[in-house]
């Protein structure tokens, strides 16, 4: 069986968010998931954008969500660039949050045999150098 790396030892830099993505990263200091919510369209969106995906208007607010969801698809990264080189293999997945958006993230605490499309997951927070956290996921057993 393939032994997977949780990539927690990978030296990641602090995020440099775009000006319209700041609240998402700030909330990770308290391990909270914030999503943009388009008040005109009544829908969540991710990743953060400078405008509403359907409306084209900037009538957006940030709302806290649970961060729970399920695996949409995944891959096993067996080759990687720095700083991930030498930490392969590890999991990269798209996770569909319960609010209907897809998030790309590493999956931890999950042997490859337990990994499948549809598996329920919950947030796992990896510390970053500036006190923010990286949103990862682990199985919601």
């Amino acid at each position, binding site marked *: 069986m393939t032994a997977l790396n949780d990539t927690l030892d990978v030296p990641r830099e602090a995020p440099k968010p775009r000006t319209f993505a700041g609240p998402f990263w700030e909330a990770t200091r308290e391990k909270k998931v914030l999503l943009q919510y388009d008040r005109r369209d009544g829908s969540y969106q991710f990743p953060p954008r*400078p405008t509403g995906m359907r409306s084209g208007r900037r009538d957006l607010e940030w709302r806290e969500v649970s961060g729970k969801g399920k695996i949409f698809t995944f891959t*096993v*990264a067996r080759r990687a660039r720095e700083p991930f080189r030498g930490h392969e293999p590890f999991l990269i997945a798209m996770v569909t949050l319960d609010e209907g958006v897809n998030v790309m993230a590493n999956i931890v605490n999950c042997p490859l045999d337990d990994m499948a499309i549809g598996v329920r997951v919950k947030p796992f927070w990896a510390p970053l150098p500036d006190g923010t956290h990286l949103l990862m996921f682990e199985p919601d057993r």
Partner: protein
Amino acid sequence: MAWHDCAVVAYAETKIVEKSDRDVFELGAEILESLLDRSGVEKAEIDGLVLSSSMTGAGNPFWSQATADQLALELDFCQTVDIGGCSPAGALARACMAIDAGLATTVLCLFADTQASANNRRVTQDLTQFVGYLGPPAAFGLLSRRYEHQFGLDYTALGKLAVAQRGHAVLNELACEKLRRPITVDDYLGSRMIADPIRLLDSVMVCDGGSGLLVMGRRNAEKRGFTRCVVPIGYAERTNHRASENIVDVTETGHLAAGRRAFAQAGLTPAQIASFHPYDDFIIAIMMQLEMLGFCKQGQGCDFVKAHDFTHTGDLPLNTGGGQISAGQCGLAGGGTNLVEAVRQLFGEGGPRQVKDTRNALVTGIGGIPYGRNWTSSAVMILTPDA
């Protein structure tokens, strides 16, 4: 065409500041919102985007695609005009050309830059750097796994495509020498995993090289006595297919929309295509294009592959120079390898790999890897010889 057949119906400007505390895409969002409010045009009606070049985005070869993604615009035409200070006026002229050619009906011309604020110059994929994402192989790993989940995936069928293209590279003296050795389906299946289930022999190898074409008006070509030439009879592109949706079926691509329009313009059906020269960054992309272009139904690509012969003597010759996967990918010029091979075949100059049926050729493009989708832009072109 006359220039005055097109009309500017609204304009917008942001406040000009010494140093912006807003990202360049945020300026674009303000301009977009302002134009929508002033004109009453719906965002979904915008089907074209022409940008001026940007110092902020100058390091990004996907500038127009990145902007379309950030503004969630679904487009049938987009480009960056990179003639420096002439770019905004040049953009309006090119918007008129696109409308005149029928490529788009409603075009956003956007000129935004944040050159003065140095910290806005970064244009990397700041959302994917944290996950160890190796770009295209990881993206196609995610895509392939999802395809397999929805429809099943017969890897021997994908191997058959890899073997056919490799056979063509062996016959192509211009192909990268390292790749001019025949392979078998077992070689394909046994090649090492890069990003499961993407294997080494699914993937392009980045190389160096170039290609080009010379184009003139058809009447001019006749007057000049060119007895052989190649003529486009259908072309369409789609950028950000289903752009306004958060979660898309990643097995459906922009080739679905672009293919329908290109085939309608050409007056042809997929069954009438004489040779097929799809953009090939990964083997599964070839199969997905067969589905999206209507050679078979979505999800039935593997069955179609097993039922047809893709060698240069077969019933649907495929990338007869080896494609990018077996001839080598010339960086962002790589699509020229597929296009020029199609033109070469229609000139009848394929040599040992010449196809019999030169009535037409189908060429495609794929460009850009967006966050968690399939690919950003899809292009479809149908060519015929005009002897």
